Structure formats: C-alpha cells, structure tokens
C-alpha cells in the first residue's frame, strides 16, 4: 500500500501535473492563434481601473445581478472555490509538508473548509438537476466535473482524518482522484479558472476603451474626444 501511495503522491502526481501544464500550454497557444480585435477608434476611458474592476468581479458580488439577488448563490460559489484551493493544496501538503497536518487547527480548518465545499457542491448539483433552464444547458461534462470535485472534497476531508490512521486506501483514492482531475481538467469546464483572467481582461479592456463603467464629470466628458 505505502509503495502505491508513494507512487501516487509523488511520481503520478507530478506526471499528471506536467500533463496538465502541457495541455494548458497547447490550449493557450491555440486560443492565442485567433486574431485579436484591433480598435481603430480613439479611447474614451482609463484602462487600468476598469480592467482591474473587471478582473476582480468575483470579489465584487454587487456587480452581478444573480449575486445581488441571490446572495446564497454567491456564498456557495465562494465556499466551493475555497474548497477547491484547499483540496489542491492538500495534494502538496501531504507529500511535502506533512508536519503542517500535525497542527490541530490546520486539520480542523481544512476539514471544515472541505466539508463546507462538499455541501456547497451538493447544493450546486441539486440546483443543476432541479432547475429546468440549468438542466437544459448542462452537459455531461458539467455533471461529471461537479461530481469529481465533490468526491475530491469528501475524500480530502476524510484523508486528513485518516492520515495517521489505518485506512490508507482513502488517502490512496484521494490521490487517485487528484491525478484523474489533473488529467481531466484541460478537457473540461474546470479549466475556466485558467481562462477567467483572459476573458475578464478582454472584456475590461473593451469596456475601458469605450469609457463604460466610469464616472465622468461633465466638464471632463466634453474633452474626452479631444485628440
């Protein structure tokens, strides 16, 4: 068991991560092969602020109608994504910094985060299955990715509890799922975290160019077309 575990924790984990990195690079290369929009009109706004606001949209729930109307949706989103970060860090903590898990507070924090993320994930799954408009747009990948992540969280929470116990197969399964996720991510919607900065940057840049979302004092506005 421990030999398998060592293999999964180190060699397979690294191999899966490298594969993921390679697939990301190819995807990025492919996407950047499309021609960018070239603006020929004169700009009206100041880019940096609008682009920054666009990039930080996830941290500005009041800017999105769904988040404004349904704060619980936003809360689920936050918890779910913090859980993802926690579960991924766990795949590094266990093999490389196991001493961290000797600290009771870290273990408890990890467990609470992962269990909360699992609950949020289940709520998301329920929503996806029960809301007709979500069901209509959901693909095989949407369900599979969500189920994988939920499994990842629950196994992560369990792994921490059993790290020093007898149930080595849980840790083994956790690392197996981690490797699978790394292999699957480039082909699935989970890859959105990689695209997010680009999509938001381009939208922010387009908005900034047109001065959308800025407050302009009338005195300034009349000069904004000046060459």
């Amino acid at each position, binding site marked *: 068991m421990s030999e398998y575990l060592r293999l999964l924790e180190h060699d397979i984990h690294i191999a899966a991560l490298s594969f993921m990195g390679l697939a990301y690079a190819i995807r990025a290369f492919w996407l950047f092969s499309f021609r960018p929009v070239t603006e*020929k009109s004169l700009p009206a706004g100041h880019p940096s602020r609008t682009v920054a606001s666009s990039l930080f949209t996830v941290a500005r729930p009041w800017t999105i109608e769904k988040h404004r109307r349904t704060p619980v949706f936003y809360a689920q989103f936050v918890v779910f994504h913090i859980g993802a970060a926690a579960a991924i860090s766990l795949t590094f903590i266990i093999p490389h910094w196991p001493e961290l898990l000797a600290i009771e507070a870290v273990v408890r924090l990890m467990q609470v985060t992962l269990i909360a993320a699992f609950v949020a994930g289940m709520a998301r799954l329920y929503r996806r299955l029960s809301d007709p408009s979500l069901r209509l747009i959901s693909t095989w990948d949407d369900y599979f990715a969500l189920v994988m992540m939920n499994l990842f969280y629950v196994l992560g929470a369990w792994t921490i509890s059993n790290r020093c116990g007898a149930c080595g197969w849980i840790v083994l399964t956790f690392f197996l799922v981690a490797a699978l996720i790394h292999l699957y991510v480039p082909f699935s919607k989970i890859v959105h975290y990689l*695209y997010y900065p680009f999509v938001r940057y*381009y939208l922010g840049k387009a908005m900034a160019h047109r001065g959308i979302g800025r407050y302009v004092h009338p005195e300034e506005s009349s000069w904004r077309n000046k060459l």
Partner: protein
Amino acid sequence: MKGRIVSLAAGSQPDSRSATQYRMLSRLFRERLTREMAFSMVSCVHCGACAQACHYALARAHDPCMTPAYKADQIRRMFNRNMNWICRILSGRLNAGTSAADADMERLRDIVFGACTGCRRCTFNCPIGVDNAALIRFTRGILTEMGVVPEGLSNASRNQWLSGNQMSVTEEEFFDSLDWIKAELQYELGVGDLDILVDKKDCDIIYAVNPREIKYDPHSLMNAAKLFYLAGESWTLPRYGWDQTNFGLFSGDDRLGAFMAGNLYRAAERLRARRIVVSECGHGYRSVRWEGYSWANNQQTIPTESVVETVMRYLIEGRIKVDRLRNTGSVTFHDSCNVARYGGLVEEPRWVLKQVCSDFREMYPNGVNNFCCTGGGGLLTMPEYRPLRLEVARIKADQLKVTEADTVCTMCHNCRDGLGDLIDHYQLNMKVVQVMDLVAEALVLPPGNEGNINE
C-alpha cells in the same frame, strides 16, 4: 425565407448540399472568430447566472430556451464541432454539435434574431465575463452570409447597400425634406438667415441622421438645426453618407458595417469636417463612434460624438441657454443598450436632462444595468418576432410603471419606437420623447427674438 438544414451531427456524414454549407461554416469560423470571442466560446461554465439578467429569460421563466447561455450554446456547439480540437477528439462528449441542437438553421435563426436583442445585459452580468451578445452577433453574421436571415432585416440591409440609406430615400426626397425643415424653422424662430447646408466644406461639424428623420419624423432634424443655429455652429449634412444607421450591426455583417460607416468617414474627410456628430440613435452612435472605425479599418482622426454630447458641450461653453421650467412634467430616462452598455454614455444624457427639465427621476435599474426597450438588435424590422418581443417587454413595462413619470425620454430612435410599442401594448399612461425634444423645448431664444413658437 427558406431555411436550410445542415447536418452537423457528431460523426454523421453530411449529404453533398449540406457538406458545402458545412465547409462554408468552417471557413466562416476560421475567418471571423476573434481571440476575444474564442475565449468566450470556451469559458462558459453553465452556471445559469445570465438567466437572471435577460429580459427574455425573466419574462418567460417557464421557457429554459431563453437562457442566454443556451442561446450562445447553439453556436458554441458548432464551434466545438468545427474548431475546438479537444471536442473534435472527444466528439459528442464535450458539448460538441448534436443533430438535435444545431442541425436546424431556421431554428438557430429564430433564436439569434428572434429571441435576443443583443442588449449585452447578460455579458455584464456573467461572473466569468462571457460575451454572449458578441457570440450571438457573430452567429447572426454567419447566418446572414448563408442567407438564413429575416426578411425585414435583409431588405433594410439591401437598401443600405444599394442606396446608401436604409429607407432608400432619394436625393430629391432628401432635399425636399431639408427645404421643408428650413422653412418651418425660419418661421418658428422668426429668422431668415437660418440655412441647412449640404456638402459644405470646412465646417466644424458634419451631421449624420437616421433616415426616418428625413422620411417620417423631421422634428429630430429640426431640433438639431435649431440647436446649431442658436449655438452659431458651422455645420453641414453630407449629400451622400448622411445615414448613420447601420444594419451591418444588426445582421452581423461587418462588410456592410464597414460600407455604411465608411460612407460617413469618407464624407467627413472629403468635406474636411472637424467633428462628426450623429443624431440620437443608439446603434448609429455605436456604429459610427466605435465599431465602424474597426470595421472600415479606418483610424479615427477627428472627434466623433452624439448630439447629446454636443448639447452638453454647448451648455458648458455657454453657447446656448435653456430654461428647465419649460419642461415641467415628470421625466424618466431610458438608457439605450447601444449607448450605455456599448457606448459608455451614461452620465452625459442625465446631465443634459437635469438642465432642461425640472422633474427628472431615475428608473431602476439604470445605466449599464438598464433593461432593453425590447426593440433593439433590429427587432423592429422583424414583425414575425413581434408577439414574443411584446411578451417579454413586460419587464420594461413594469420598470416604467414604477417610475410614475409622465414621460420616458431616450436618446435612440429605435428605443423610441420600441418603447412606444410596449406603452401601447401595456396601456401605460406615458409618452416617449427624445433628449433633443426636451432640449429644443427648453432652448431660450436670444433677447429680442420671440419667434413664433406658440403658433
């Protein structure tokens, strides 16, 4: 117009006719897809948040097909099938084309032309920033190229190609209208030196209008001529290139977009005008001020603005005087999607309205969060989609009702018609005007000139 069926089923063998169209589709994808759109194609996580932003989805909550992501997915599936190498490898698994979803071009036409005004509200309310509106316009462009386009839109586009204006206004009609406007204004203002010049070189402003201002509603142009006269502006209309509207924007045809915007840019260059000003038209403003320069591959060299910005400039520079007590009714403002969400003009019309009317009240949501008038995206030229348009206009009607205003003001001809239509349909006690109507009403004539306004 007859639609054509294209089989894009994962793994299916297209017949010879659809095989040609399939190749055409692939070519169009390769030629037209920009990097920004490609990122939008691959980034949707199907969270459904955009459903909360779209007036179609809100008004037809029972109809999941109205979700913006669903509409964009129709083209996303084709993209996955044609372009996305990962989906091509795992064809059919990762949201690639299926015969049920994207085989029917007519259905796709009804979705992108009939169930979306391209208002961009979903884009602004997508946590990821997926530009569904851009994807829908892109799809419209592809369908237009393939000939699967609503008749009204196709007719207006053809008019623009053939006559340089969407209503095929002849030169004779153009000059007749200008003469009539001039005579009316001279009488109204009690002046004889007011002129409306055409093709005059070296003016400060070249003014472009919506053809309806020539054909049906000369008051808009009259208001502008009055404004320019009182401000002492040197301005001209071009003989050709005066139509600022652009059906290329609605049909997704960037070549028509370039042609129409290019007509005006060339006229400005030929006449050595120092500034382009467009009358109150949402998509016209967006086309001329923003997209047009890129479509026409023409680097902007002179300022380009909406006449509402011009009014603001005149007021700040003290070139005109207004009296807000001439507009005492309660007025609310409807932000045109093309002006606010695409064009960035939010504060400017409000600033002007606060100068020219005494009871201005906001509607909520407003600015870049405003709901579409439901007549955008060229929908007013597509009568076949009117029942659906009026059904989803309930969202806008509710928004208007809450303001309890007597008048809704907008800075777009399309919005004016769209709002007028829904006001009739929902029997709201409200009238629609444009900013320039209120400005013209509030304009103070120079001392000693009483004009004949009351007559």
